[in-house]
């Protein structure tokens, strides 16, 4: 008798909790950056030039889509970088600014396409010239704002890398330090 009761109880426990149809709660995916725009504003005034990179399908198999950077020759620009998560309509740039001491942008471009900075950027060598217009609380460069002066007519590549360097960002920490939050490459046309 006792046995039957016990067995009955087992089945009761087993099958009462069975059916549910809860779907996972929607999450704000804050890691994702699916919209990046580079805004080159001529320092002498004029219409800002905007180039974008857009991820059409999140973590799906489709490639990022780029529009070219088209700058005028021999012109001084300030570049500001805008990073967004369009799904949650978040400004990732704000988060970067808040954690400026853990983040840094690095730039790479065709040899001497700018008269300032000269060279090919600081991705291959940290000490190479890039004109950072912002810095973290420790006086180290950040890179959401930078200055550029174009040289003559040319078509080349322009690469932007954002590194997350928590606790390891220093005056010498290069692009190999930390993990990569962003690494995109645009075509740049100087005309």
């Amino acid at each position, binding site marked *: 008798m006792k*046995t039957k009761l*016990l*067995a009955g109880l*087992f*089945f009761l*426990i*087993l*099958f009462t*909790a*069975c*059916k*549910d*149809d*809860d*779907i*996972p*709660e*929607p*999450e*704000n*995916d*804050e*890691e*994702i*950056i*699916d919209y*990046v725009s580079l805004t080159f504003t001529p320092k002498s005034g004029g219409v800002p030039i905007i180039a974008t990179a857009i*991820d059409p*399908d*999140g*973590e*799906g*198999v*489709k*490639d*990022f889509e780029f529009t070219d950077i088209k700058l005028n020759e021999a012109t001084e620009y300030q570049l500001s970088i805008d990073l967004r998560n369009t*799904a949650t309509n978040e400004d990732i740039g704000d*988060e970067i600014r*808040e*954690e400026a001491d*853990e983040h840094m942008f690095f730039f790479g471009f065709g040899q001497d396409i700018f008269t300032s900075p000269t060279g090919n950027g600081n991705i291959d060598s940290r000490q190479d010239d890039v004109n950072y217009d912002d810095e973290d609380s420790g006086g180290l460069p950040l890179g959401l704002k930078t200055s550029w002066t174009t040289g003559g007519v040319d078509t080349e590549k322009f690469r932007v890398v954002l590194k*997350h360097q*928590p*606790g*390891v960002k220093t005056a010498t920490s290069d*692009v*190999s*330090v*930390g*993990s*990569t*939050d*962003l*690494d*995109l*490459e645009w075509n740049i046309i100087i005309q």
Partner: protein
Amino acid sequence: MNKLLFFLLISSVPWMALAQSNTCDVKVSGEVVDAVSKEPVAYATIQVVGSSVGVLTDEFGYFELDGLCDQEIDLKIAHLGYKSLVHHHDPDHHHHIVHLSPESLQLQGVVIEEVKKSAGLTSGVSKSISAKELDAYLGGNLGDALTTVSGVNAVSNGQNIVKPVVHGLHTNRVLIINNELRHEFQNWGDGHAAEIELSAVDRIEVVKGAATVRYGSEALGGVVKLSDAPLNLHSGFNGQAVMSGRSNGRAAHAAFNLQYGFDAVSLAVHAGTTKQGDLTAADYQLTNTGKQSWEAGLNARFHKGVSDFTLGLSHVQQKLGILRGSVVGNLNDLDTAMRTEPPYFTKDFSYEIGTPYQEVAHSMAKLKGLFLKGEHVFEIIYGLQRNSRKEFDVRRGTNNSLPSINLLLYAQSLSLDWEHPKLAAWKGNAGLQINFTDNNNIAGTNTTPFLPNYNTFKIGGYWIESVALTASTIDLGLRYDFQKSDVRGRDSSNEPYFNELRFENITATVGWNKVTDHFNISTNLGLAWRAPNMAELYSFGKHQAIIQYGLLRYEIDENGQISTGKILTNEDKNVGSELGYKWVGSVDHQKNKSRLSFTLYANWIKNYIYSRPYGITQTQRGALPYYIYEQTNALLTGFDIDWSVKHNANWQSKFSGDYVYARDVKNDSWFVGIPPAAVKYELLYQKKNEGKVDYWSVGLSPGYIFSQYQAPQVITVGEIIESEGQILNSATGVFDFLAAPAGYFLLQLNAKVNIKQFQLGLGVYNVTNAKYRSYTNTMRYFADEKGFDLSLDLKYNF
């Protein structure tokens, strides 16, 4: 009498079946060990009470009595210096482990009865790890302890996350049964090991045959059975307490295991805790490889008349650090990390565990009833398990303190087994197993979970028979399984999706076993199956420097063009279950001072699920290679060998080795991560009763692990970056980012001293502080394995 018979029956696996009849061919075997040191006791006398029949144990403590006419006899086990024991033997137990207690101690000896092959089928090859062998892993992890069984290796994701590999298969292809319940956890991917602390485990048995018929799906490679200490009646108070420390990781471990056996009730409690800091490789610190864990459990048994009830409760909590330098965001990071040594973020020693780490908790409750009615035996087991897993990654801002994976799983199971009375030469049992799991994402991870919420219902029925022939036994078994999963998830744009998955399979097994004076020969052919796991079906997105798409997350058109926009159902893509056909043959030979065991196997798996690179995609972190899960056919074959020789009373040698050959037969290529061949030798010197020292031993154990020569092609990250991914378009099949590491030589040393109830152990792992990397550890891309490690442990037997 009846009571005693029942006591013996219930401590056995009821479906065990061995030949027996009423003529004079009854055979009894067993081993005699020292209750304190667990060392075998040679030359102990085993005598049938009231007769002149008797034998001595051999050098390994083994004995065998045959040609007995009576099914039920009393055996007297005695040895100078030990308290002698009288044990009542009944026909259902052919193998005994006799624990003799030294005369100098209060301790009482006990006899643990078991069937020599408690796998349910006599022909399914199985091997056990004794308590003595487990002593060497105090405070260590389960996966490492299991590697003492030949044919069992480990795959790991750093030193704290280690999973057993049986004959080349692991994760969902090896079933873990803990305290009689199927361990239910997030058993997918590389990085999740079973949440089990060794201090809770009394005995380990590895079944190397495909044992699906008895245990259900997933047992393609084999079954790892972990048992808590047996609950003995009338045994009074006994138990042990352990304290141990290790130099590497400056780890400390403490545990106890206490038991009281009354006349009708037996109670046992166990608990253990471990704290380990950063480990050290030969040349540098492995930053963030600490571990903190604790476990506690209670087992109780109540015995009355023809009924016997067992209650089991346990809880495990672990916080496991993962090497900080293994975190990469893209291919450039991976390239740098692989070329940087010591790894980035390497700091001085610390007990602190930062991101990335895992926080896991597993609780279980078991209720078991055993009932006798005439010669029928009924067993019913209900289990309830709760498994919580949180994984913390290196993330930006406040997200760094949020888990990026947070899953909670509840599992219930009910199993019923009926053993029928013996009918002529036929013995057997039949049963029903019902499982229900409910797996849910806990909100608040700020990342879209790729793993859906799901409920899975499984039901399976089996029937197993053993037929005794004149000099051998034939096993036959048949099983039917059905399982259904209701899936509810969200796609990458947060839109909900639903799916229902159904699988059903019929499996069977047939085997043959013959035991002669010196040989024990078995052969077994078994079918096994498993359904694809949720990660294999629904993976979507980046993990470290690669992207993975599950079987239901991508489509490939006639032109080979891939798209990942749609979530497929089983109507769109028919994903079949994995089906394994495993043959195992084994020969054990035992004569005089030598014991040799050789196992040969071949396992053909249809619809084998694996992931392979398919292309490269431009992401926010640059170009990343992406992998798709696919199904193929696999062949795994190999052998294991164990050989031990007692040279004399003091010197003993042991040799073991194993080899696996694994091939993707459809694509004609190798798989990544198959354990390489390994050989190990151990030379042991032991001495008994020297002055106040009851026992002492010193062992030296060199081992060599070969490089994996049967590894797929290598395409380095540098080559991928340089070719802007083009190299992946022209390459076909599986590749690895790095060549398999070189073979390595490891030297281990251990020493043991027993004085009365105390046992002091000393161990040195990696004596030469060798710098090496293991092919089956995913951390091999980033850092060396653990260097020199000195351990010291003190054990007290109550």
